[in-house]
């Protein structure tokens, strides 16, 4: 999306050079990419483990590094909102006066007079109603967070104008949409830096395009630093803390009368020894990095995780995201995205209103689904780690579910959000289980209902659900898919068209898969 344009590239490269950043032209070339905008390409054969970019953290644009950092701290603001407001000031109030400008001006919030906005601000957003972006991610709903953030930004702008005499950045604060565009531009580029800087914009690192399956690089940054000064290892805050403790202990001891006290003269022999020791003293050489005068721990890196032959584009991965999420966060979509899904939860909910099925759905929601997950975690060894992660996530969600039992229409409960068809047209494993459950005859259903909470002692009855789709289940699903299919609207945004097209293909594949299995 809001991708860097070629005209801004010299400024960005100059900025990196000014920061003594390491980005060797012998290894990488930035040029137009066939996937859109600019991309980074291998200038020669590159090997796994090579560092392509190393920048001091002082060259990362974060709220902490910004001109108004102290005002943000005074106002107790942090996180993405602080970063967005910092960006607004740096690029409007300070502009050329700020030394961030050569880089930040490359972060565009509009093109040819029209703002880059997330789908929920598109004039034709209603065309996306009922598709996965809407139903699974609520990607068309207004976000209260950003509206609230905008109000805070406005209030602070007035206060800072009055107290500090800084002009109000009307350029980006005169309406909500411009502020949203700033937040969107930042969210599409942001990197997690560390617990001092939190999130930040990293020049050059943000030029690597996303690859859905085989990224070549990863972003490296030491996260665990002092949250007060950003320094790795023993910073002055930790030193002072240790000293203070030491002194407290000493005070305890000193309550007794001074114990050891010498008298007379220091032994000349001791002085001689000390004199000879002096010579041996050596200072530890500091670890040398690729940035002059900066320790590697104080830098962020882009490192190759696999070899890339000369001439090929070098890709990063922004995460295993479906097209709807890519669109909502980054403004682009990928054809044949292996992480793409079509969401059937809403259609399923309608179906579950049927009295007979409603009983089974309730059971699934409260007992079956948690048990099924535990069973999977125990029985599917190969995905152990993955399942464990999922389980943790689900435990969190279970708690949430208790609270908002009644407003299912607003917030998709977690068990429902996994009711998806994957890029091959196949249902997710919990969806397969639920469909099988719904298709069970009464005898099997009663058998399942007798399961108690304890998976291990009652054996693997729940595993009955982990079978290929039964004939009945396939019918139910086919019915859902049919209902879900709709013509692809001709929406203005090209990335959204890719998303809708991809969703259509997934449903088609599902149809094909189900028909061929019937």
């Amino acid at each position, binding site marked *: 999306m809001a991708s860097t344009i070629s005209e801004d590239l010299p400024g960005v490269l100059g900025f990196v050079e*000014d*920061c003594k950043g390491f980005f060797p032209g012998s290894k990488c070339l930035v040029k137009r990419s066939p996937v859109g905008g600019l991309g980074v390409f291998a200038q020669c054969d590159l090997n796994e483990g090579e560092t392509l970019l190393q920048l001091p953290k*002082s*060259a990362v644009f974060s709220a*902490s*590094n*910004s*001109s*108004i*950092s*102290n*005002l*943000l*701290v*005074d106002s107790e603001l942090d996180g993405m909102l602080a970063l967005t407001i910092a960006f607004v000031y740096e690029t409007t109030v*300070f502009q050329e*006066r*700020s*030394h*961030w400008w050569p880089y930040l001006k490359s972060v565009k919030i509009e093109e040819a007079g029209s703002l880059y906005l997330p789908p929920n601000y598109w004039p034709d957003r209603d065309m996306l109603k009922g598709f996965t972006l809407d139903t699974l991610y609520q990607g068309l709903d207004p976000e209260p967070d950003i509206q609230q953030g905008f109000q805070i930004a406005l209030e602070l702008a007035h206060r800072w104008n009055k*107290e*500090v*005499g*800084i002009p109000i950045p009307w350029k980006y604060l005169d309406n909500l949409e411009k502020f949203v565009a700033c937040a969107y531009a930042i969210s599409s580029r942001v990197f997690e830096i560390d617990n001092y800087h939190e999130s930040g914009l990293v020049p050059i690192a943000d030029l690597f395009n996303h690859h859905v399956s085989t990224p070549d690089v990863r972003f490296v940054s030491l996260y665990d630093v002092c949250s*007060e*000064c*950003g320094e790795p290892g023993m910073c*002055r*805050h930790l*030193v*002072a*803390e240790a*000293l*203070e403790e030491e*002194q407290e202990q000493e005070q305890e001891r000193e309550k007794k009368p*001074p114990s*050891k*006290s*010498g*008298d*007379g*003269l*220091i*032994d*000349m022999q*001791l*002085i001689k020894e*000390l004199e000879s020791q*002096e010579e041996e003293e050596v200072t530890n050489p500091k670890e040398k990095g690729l940035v002059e005068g900066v320790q590697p721990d104080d830098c962020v890196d882009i490192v190759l995780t696999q070899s890339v032959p000369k001439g090929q584009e070098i890709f990063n991965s922004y995460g295993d995201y479906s097209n709807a999420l890519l669109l909502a966060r980054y403004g682009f979509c990928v054809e044949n995205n292996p992480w793409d899904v079509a969401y059937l939860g809403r259609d399923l909910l309608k179906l579950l209103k049927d009295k007979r099925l409603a009983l089974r759905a309730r059971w699934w929601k409260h007992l079956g689904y948690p048990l099924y997950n535990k069973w999977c975690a125990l029985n599917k060894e190969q995905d152990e780690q993955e399942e464990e992660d999922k389980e943790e996530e689900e435990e969190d969600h279970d708690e949430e579910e208790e609270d908002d039992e009644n407003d299912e229409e607003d917030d998709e409960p977690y068990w429902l959000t996994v009711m998806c068809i994957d890029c091959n047209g196949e249902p997710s494993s919990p969806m397969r289980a639920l469909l099988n459950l719904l298709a069970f005859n009464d005898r099997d259903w009663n058998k399942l209902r007798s399961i108690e909470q304890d998976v291990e002692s009652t054996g693997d009855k729940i595993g009955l659900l982990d079978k290929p789709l039964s004939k009945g289940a396939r019918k139910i699903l086919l019915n859902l898919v049919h209902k879900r299919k709709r013509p692809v609207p001709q929406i203005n945004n090209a990335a959204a068209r890719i998303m809708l097209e991809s969703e259509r293909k997934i449903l088609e594949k599902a149809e094909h898969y189900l028909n061929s299995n019937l």
Partner: protein
Amino acid sequence: MAEVVYCAGLQCGKRTDSTLKCPICLKNGITSVFCDDTCYKENYKSHKALHPNEKNEPYDPFPKFKYTGGMRASYPLTPKRYIPEDIEKPDWSANGMPISEQRNDRLNKIPTYTKEEIKKIRKACMMGREIIDVAAAAIRPGITTDELDEIVHRETIERKAYPSPLNYYNYPKSVCISVNEVICHGIPDKTVLKEGDIVNLDVSLYYMGFHADLNETYYVGENISKEAINTVETARECLKNAIKHCKPGTPFQELGDIIEKHATENKCSVVKSYCGHGVGRFFHCAPSIPHYARNRTPGVMRPGMVFTVEPMINEGVWRDATWPDDWTSVTQDGKLSAQFEHTLLVTDNGVEILTARNKKSPGGPRQRTK
């Protein structure tokens, strides 16, 4: 009543009942008492600076060191000067560690002060001006930097203030005195000032809970090279230009541009390793204010902030090196370096120079010569 005795170790400084003395010091008429052998061992490196050589005349303690210019360390140092009991001391006075400053300074938390606090800071700054003026008036060919330290120390404690540098991270003296190619943090010693030298006095003091910090570069005698005058006057003008720019809403990163522009126009360079800083409740705290161009230091000025601007301007290259005393910073090419510093207060509409010169202040600008 017995005299209160403190351990002579700069990293200890505790009150002690010990009578264990350094024999070398004693032979030279100095009483240095240590808690015990361990204290002596731990503090030996800094303590031995007090020891004379065999010939009992000033000597260079680092004969193997490759000095970059003509200046040399000239030892022995005089012992840590006495602070009367009734003077309020900062937390580093005994063992050298400014713990409260280290604990409380947060990079992006730039303190602003109340009217009451500013009153006290202003008072400290005025005293700083008085003290530096007295010391500057004593500058002449033939005086040693240690004698100037004695003046600064005396004038400071006379005003019931503590000389902030004393034992700050174990800095051994009460003032920093930087001659010719010394950029900053020169330690007063047996060095004798001579005609044509330039010398910077960096005076800081702690009074009623607040620090003041100022420095100024002075000419020694009348016969000054045109290079020296250009370097000193450029530094003086750099500070003046930067101060003009200070007002609420100014980002700190802009000061470096102004300073470096003027330095470059006068064929000088700007030191990068040392920065201006917040001052007040702490000797050094946020903000950090680099003096070189295109820096990206965070923060913007708001009324009630107190900080220093103190550009170090070099005749030659900007790069610095440090002597083995771990303090004295010198130019890498051995050419001259000059510096000026004020403590500044951001007001509602601009800035107030809290350490401003007055009509009677010694020193001041000289005409550049061709």
